[in-house]
């Protein structure tokens, strides 16, 4: 394995770690808080209903936006750190 290959492999595993982390949050806010864990959040009231309802109708969408911008920012930085960015 050349130096170049090792660098590329490290970049790719950093990307995979970032994706897995982001997708855990993605699943937690929608499938978790918004659907499956809603009964557990029933005690936390938000404007006439509960936190699970808020995540299902607003919270998950806001989190998705945050996740994509975070991912784009981190990856565009990683591109440069590993010298793999476009000219």
């Amino acid at each position, binding site marked *: 394995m050349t130096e170049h290959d090792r660098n*590329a492999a490290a*970049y*790719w595993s950093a*990307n995979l770690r970032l*994706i897995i982390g*982001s*997708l855990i949050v*993605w699943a937690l806010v*929608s*499938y978790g808080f*918004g*659907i*499956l864990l*809603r*009964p557990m959040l029933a005690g936390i009231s*938000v*404007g*006439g*209903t*509960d936190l*699970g*309802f*808020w995540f*299902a*109708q*607003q919270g*998950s*969408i*806001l989190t*998705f*936006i945050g*996740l*994509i*911008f975070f*991912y*784009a920012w981190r*990856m*565009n930085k990683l*591109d440069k750190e590993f*010298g*793999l*960015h*476009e*000219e």
Partner: protein
Amino acid sequence: MSQFAINLIFVGGSFALYIAIAIWARAGSTKEFYVAGGGVHPVMNGMATAADWMSAASFISMAGLIAAGGYANSTYLMGWTGGYVLLAMLLAPYLRKFGKFTVPEFIGDRFYSKNARFVAVACLIIASVTYVIGQMTGAGVAFSRFLEVESDTGLMIAGVIVFLYAVMGGMKGITYTQVAQYVVLIIAYTIPAVFISLQLTGNFLPPLGLFADHVESGIPLLQKLDMVVRDLGFVDYTADVTNKLNMVLFTLSLMIGTAGLPHVIIRFFTVPKVSDARWSAGWALVFIALLYLTAPAVASMARLNLLNTIYPAGPTADAIQYAERPDWIKNWEQTGLIKFDDKNADGRIQLYNDTAAFKATADARGWNGNELTVNNDILVLANPEIANLPGWVIGLIAAGGLAAALSTAAGLLLAISSAVSHDLIKGSINPQISEKGELLAARISMAVAIVVATWLGMNPPGFAAQVVALAFGIAAASIFPALMMGIFSKRVNNKGAIAGMLAGLLSTVVYIFLFLGWFFIPGTATFANTPDNWLFGISPLSFGAVGAMINFIVAFAVSSVTEAPPVRIQQLVESVRYPKGAGAATDH
């Protein structure tokens, strides 16, 4: 000025703008026709993607679905936005790096197989054509209600407008028109919502109004709505659902399907760099969220407004006299989307949930069945009238609904025509075709696609409502997994990918046909479409996610017992993973 004249000014004005863009943004090369030259700014592409994605279903139908289903239909909100996270992290940047013009082209190159490319073209065309029918019928509804023309005449006008900018400008014309259409549709959607939110909650931001107090009663809006619907025998608006497996799978199917829809993916081929593709996905979701955060507010507020109109003195008092019904009910009765049937002949409009559990209450009140049927689709379009908003807001809604339908139709038509001219003609039938010849072929296939779409809009197959399930099912079960494995696995080979796509496609289509009728022919369903008959309680609409899993499993299983892909393919996978060396989109 009459309402008709106002509507005409708004719709005519927006159409004049689209035509002006068509003349200004003509395509001179295949690169301009397929990917708008590849130099679209990421924020602008985000806006165009938002219009491309938000269809008649998002603009016209979604709030109505949420109003009718309450919390249970939050699936649409999460499902149709969560797909962008998948797109941004799993597909868009790598496909941009690959740098070609179409989705089937990537599948054909990566799985070094013309057959794989054909399967992808077939999936793309079935998914996109079924999707385009919904856009054309949505445009027909808007025309017939607001411009008092026959729906067919309206569809032909719409067809000519799309023809002008899509055939002349290709992706370049479509991109700039979609930006204009986004502006029109988002203004049209949010302005009535702001007015209604102010009326009901005193908060001018609808997403905050949704969780604020109802001005009239002083209790939270959602609590008030729960009380009103309960008095009429409906399930609480915020009630939890019991079949959570189905809710999860339905949401997942919508997310994977969104990420796998070719007309959305190709929008990311138009930005200059890989890093721009990532940013652009974020901007797309920001622009989409402006509508998607407003929609649940519109849904709950419109439902409350509707019930208040029918029961002016509250749900436990007498309903309104039919003779005294407001004008908007009369207007929509003419379209057949609101129907009244005075079952107990008391001259009043009883709207309630006619179920066995509520029968005792209904009997005690002298009710003889629900008397008003309201089509979910009219909710957004009738919203300004229900809330007594000024005439120009109604004109705006008409222009907005048409912008949503036409922008999505144009994106779908481009995906179809590029699959025909680039994947079938250039890729297979006549690889020697000149640049000029291919551009002409692209324009002709676009023209044919528009004629077919307009015809299908005029003669919608009886299954128009079900086909959206088919489009998402196919995108989720065939296209998304193939693209993802092509990027994230070096081991999946041509045989595995084809077997996986076919297994995912067939299992999903068969499961849908079992419950909704074979080829959607009425009366041919093998099982009644009821939750008791569904396998593990999974509805046919939710099966796309299962089909995707079948695709992954079959593809990996077949690949593991057959040979690894050649070294040049493994190098191709390497090259799409690293942004360095990405050029502009090319055709060779």
